[in-house]
């Protein structure tokens, strides 16, 4: 599903993304705060939904080939996290929704 549409469904505010990334597709959603868990999942092109607002969330997303990181629970990613997302070319967004609600919204949009 189109990443921009998907993020809109979770009422996300895009903090960084280049135009080409907004038209990218996300096939799955991985919702996790434990990055160790993210690293054990074999999903292609997932969107990482997390309440971990640190650079490690971006690094982990990059390593597993995620298409974007969405930070939930109304957290504001620190500038270093945004800078790293920019450096790695990985779209970064935030949403005021609690993680569960964001997950439900993303699931509905994906037709789960």
């Amino acid at each position, binding site marked *: 599903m189109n990443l921009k549409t998907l993020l809109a469904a979770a009422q996300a505010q895009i903090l960084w993304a280049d135009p080409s990334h907004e038209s990218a597709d996300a096939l799955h959603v991985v919702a996790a705060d*434990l*990055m*160790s*868990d993210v*690293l054990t999942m074999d999903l292609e092109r997932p969107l990482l939904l997390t309440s971990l607002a640190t650079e*490690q*969330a971006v*690094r982990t997303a990059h390593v597993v080939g995620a298409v974007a990181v969405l930070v939930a629970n109304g957290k504001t990613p620190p500038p270093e996290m945004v800078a790293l997302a920019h450096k790695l070319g990985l779209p970064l967004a935030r949403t005021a929704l609690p993680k569960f609600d964001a997950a439900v919204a993303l699931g509905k949009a994906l037709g789960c």
Partner: protein
Amino acid sequence: MNPIPISAEQSPLLFLELLYKLRVRDVMARDLVTIRRDATMRELQRLMQARRVSGVPVVENGRLFGIVSIEDLLQALDAQRMDEPVANFMAASVVTIEDDMPLAIAISYFNKYEYRRFPVLDARGEAVGIVTARSINTRLLVELFRELARIENQYVLPLSENASCSFQTFRVARSDFENAGSAATEIKNVLQKRGIDPKIIRRVAIAAYELEMNLVVHSDGGTLTFRADEGEVQLIAKDQGPGIADVELAMQEGWTTANDWVKSLGFGAGMGLPNARRVSDEFHIASEPGQGTTVTVRDVLPPRPLQKRSKNRPPDRRRV
């Protein structure tokens, strides 16, 4: 020919510093093999064979009287004078060197004189050792390696890359969460440039990330080395400690020694090693408490379809 081909003018500064920092006493052989003046040349022959030396200082009570070499022995053999005392064959005027002189002087002696060994005298004039090209070179190598290791520790080693192979070593510091994962990111980028299957890149990147996080979280610091060629990608995570007491236990999913602070960063769930094994074709871990841990993982690359020949191919012979 110079036995020690070192120029004091053209060597790197670090090396020159070594030449002046090290003293003769640092490079001399201390287990000095000596002989008395009244010993026979036959005894000298046995001594040389037993101790595998080709030159022996003639010393009595610490005082140096001369030096006998294998050439003197050959002369005695030739003249059938093996029962005569060493005193009849030794060179009585010996070029000696003092133990607190800088190594640079010792090296200049080798180039200035024809001799291959110089007895070393201490401040009291007693023979305390001997310098040979071998004793100098051995010590210099040890010092140079130490110096190289020190310099290496200050620099990020550059990527060495060509069409057939990429190779790089990353230094990973203990508890450096700010940079944790940057080696894995870098490795992923290099693999992408090599045009490797994204699925395999993902596996390697995950293994690299897990190993890198382990170095940051658990080790006293170490290195992550990766090597990619046409056939495989290899990662080696090596640290200097503290080592794992029970490797089998550490390989169990969910077993962890990480603290809460590490866990607050989303790590330390005890999945690192098992997950690194999961995403590799070959996995090997060796660890010793107090020594350190080395983890090696390999991912095999499928053979690539043959590429079209380049434009530079030589002309077809049949058509010439």
